[in-house]
């Protein structure tokens, strides 16, 4: 799947990013450039900082050193404490969580339309049309009037993807989107993500689904103990990992 993206515009840029939880150094000198349309899969053992890394991109976590910049409408915006910048970036970056985090007191449709109506000031009718077409895309339009608690895990995660897409983001972050799902529901969520990837969305995905990484990713990044240990196109990454730590990790998750 690796394509030549060297001419594409950089949409996310991390330069020497460092972060600590108290004394614990979670991210060490992270350098990363994501290009427009690129699909990146981040893998690594638990506690390696991969979730923290993508959560820093939309400021769910604050980094303490280094620069994180996101391109919004061709403008490069740096993440600072300026709430305006944070909100501009969040409008451009959609996120899907491991535990779905749908709003349980709102219907599926209302979950999808809330942010477009109140943040983007989309007229209600238009927002609902967009929401319904997205529900169609994730193949659950018939659930629009139900509440999240009435849906299966797989359906909820597809709603969560649709909810993020409603804001028409340029970039999508996925934080272990299939880890909380029953095995038979993983595929329906991955299928939606693959479709999205084929449509050209820029995606950064933290996942252990190596099949997905093989077929979709332009680049696979392996993290351990807060550092990027190794990265490369999936063919190379899976066939000849250079680092010992990568080989150990792949050995553990590929054949158990």
């Amino acid at each position: 799947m690796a394509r030549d993206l060297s001419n594409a515009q950089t949409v996310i840029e991390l330069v020497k990013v460092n972060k600590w939880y108290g004394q614990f150094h979670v991210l060490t000198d992270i350098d990363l450039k994501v290009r427009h349309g690129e699909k990146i899969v981040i893998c690594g053992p638990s506690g390696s900082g991969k979730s923290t890394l993508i959560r820093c991109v939309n400021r769910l976590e604050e980094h303490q050193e280094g620069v994180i910049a996101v391109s919004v409408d061709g403008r490069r915006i740096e993440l600072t404490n300026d709430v305006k910048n944070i909100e501009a970036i969040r409008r451009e970056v959609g996120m899907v969580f491991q535990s779905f985090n749908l709003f349980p007191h709102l219907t599926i449709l209302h979950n999808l339309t809330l942010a477009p109506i109140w943040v983007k000031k989309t007229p209600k009718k238009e927002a609902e049309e967009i929401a319904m077409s997205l529900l169609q895309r994730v193949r659950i339009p018939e659930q629009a009037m139900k509440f999240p608690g009435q849906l299966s895990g797989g359906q909820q995660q597809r709603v969560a993807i649709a909810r993020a897409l409603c804001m028409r983001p340029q970039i999508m972050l996925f934080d272990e989107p299939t880890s909380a799902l029953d095995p038979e529901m993983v595929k329906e969520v991955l299928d939606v993500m693959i479709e999205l990837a084929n449509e050209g969305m820029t995606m950064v995905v933290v996942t252990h689904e190596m099949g997905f990484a093989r077929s979709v990713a332009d680049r696979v990044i392996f993290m351990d103990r807060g550092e990027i240990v190794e990265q490369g196109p999936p063919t190379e990454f899976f066939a000849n990992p250079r680092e010992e730590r990568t080989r150990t990790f792949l050995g553990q998750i590929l054949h158990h």
Partner: protein
Amino acid sequence: MTDIASGAAPATRTSRPPPRGEAGAIGWLRKNLFGGVGDGLTTIVLLALLVWGLWGFVEWAVVNANFSAKSGPECTANSPGGACWAFVRDKYRLIFFGTFPFEQHWRPLFACIALFAMLIASCDRRFWNWRLAVIWLAGSGVALTLMFGGVFGLSFVETSSWGGLPVTLILATYGLAFAFPLGILAALGRRSKLPLIKSLCVGYIELIRGVPLISLLIMASVMLPLFLPSGFTIDKFLRALVAVVLFAGAYIAEIVRGGLQAIPKGQYEAADALGLGYARKTFFIVLPQALQVVIPPLVNTFVGFFKDTSLVLIIGIFDLLNAGEQAIVDRNWSGFANEIHVFLAMVYFVMCFAMSRYSKYLERELNKGVRR
């Protein structure tokens, strides 16, 4: 065809109803009241006690009661051992409307009706939008115009002449209506990351909660005027209302804070990731869920404060309970305090029970769909 393991759809395999217990009234009785010798005995003893106690009350309240006597001694002579409801009949206008000018009693009556209508309409979720503001403006406008007067040819009546049910209703309704948003703001402030706002809210909540309502009322009524420039006065009734608002606000704040803590972190993160911002996140995502969780303790507090408004007696305001106490003092009817108290208890019970039932209904309504 009945092989479940092969994953046949539920429609194609034969499903049968669950086994039937002992159906019908007899079955229910046997299961719940006479499950064994001990159960049966307990049931019989408790029923006997209930009948005995109830009969004593019914004898007093209905069988031997007097509804028509003109004075206390007449009651005693005509209906010994019975309730003297004639006393309540003679005094009900004093109890309900206190010292409001007697010939003007229709005004507090209609004020109460307006307030009740406003409160009942507010219970309907279909009105929980801009209509609620209209309902409250209209209801309050009608009620307060009737109570104060001074316009449309109505004579002006000072708040010091108000009494009885409208006083209880106004103090409780507006006390809680203002305390509720105040409490929510204080609860949100207490969780704020801004140190000044946080300490201000903690200070308010802890200070008020550490002081009895009575002392707050006395402060509002006696001490506050000392600090105001001479010639400048605030109505006593208004001061009492402010004291109730401040007091109830602190309690509501702590209840709401409990609800806020019950909201999973993921809800905040999802709202943040969508770029909702603090105000919209709080209003659309956090508060609806937090308040739903705390309906039972919230209504508990509302019921409590509805009754606690009686403490305004301390500063010389006569609400329903205190107007009733005033009625008891009448020499003509000495010795019949029980009747007034039972009557007052019933009036309070009806209103508090209505609140309790409504909270049950609301919990069920809001849980629709959320539960599987």
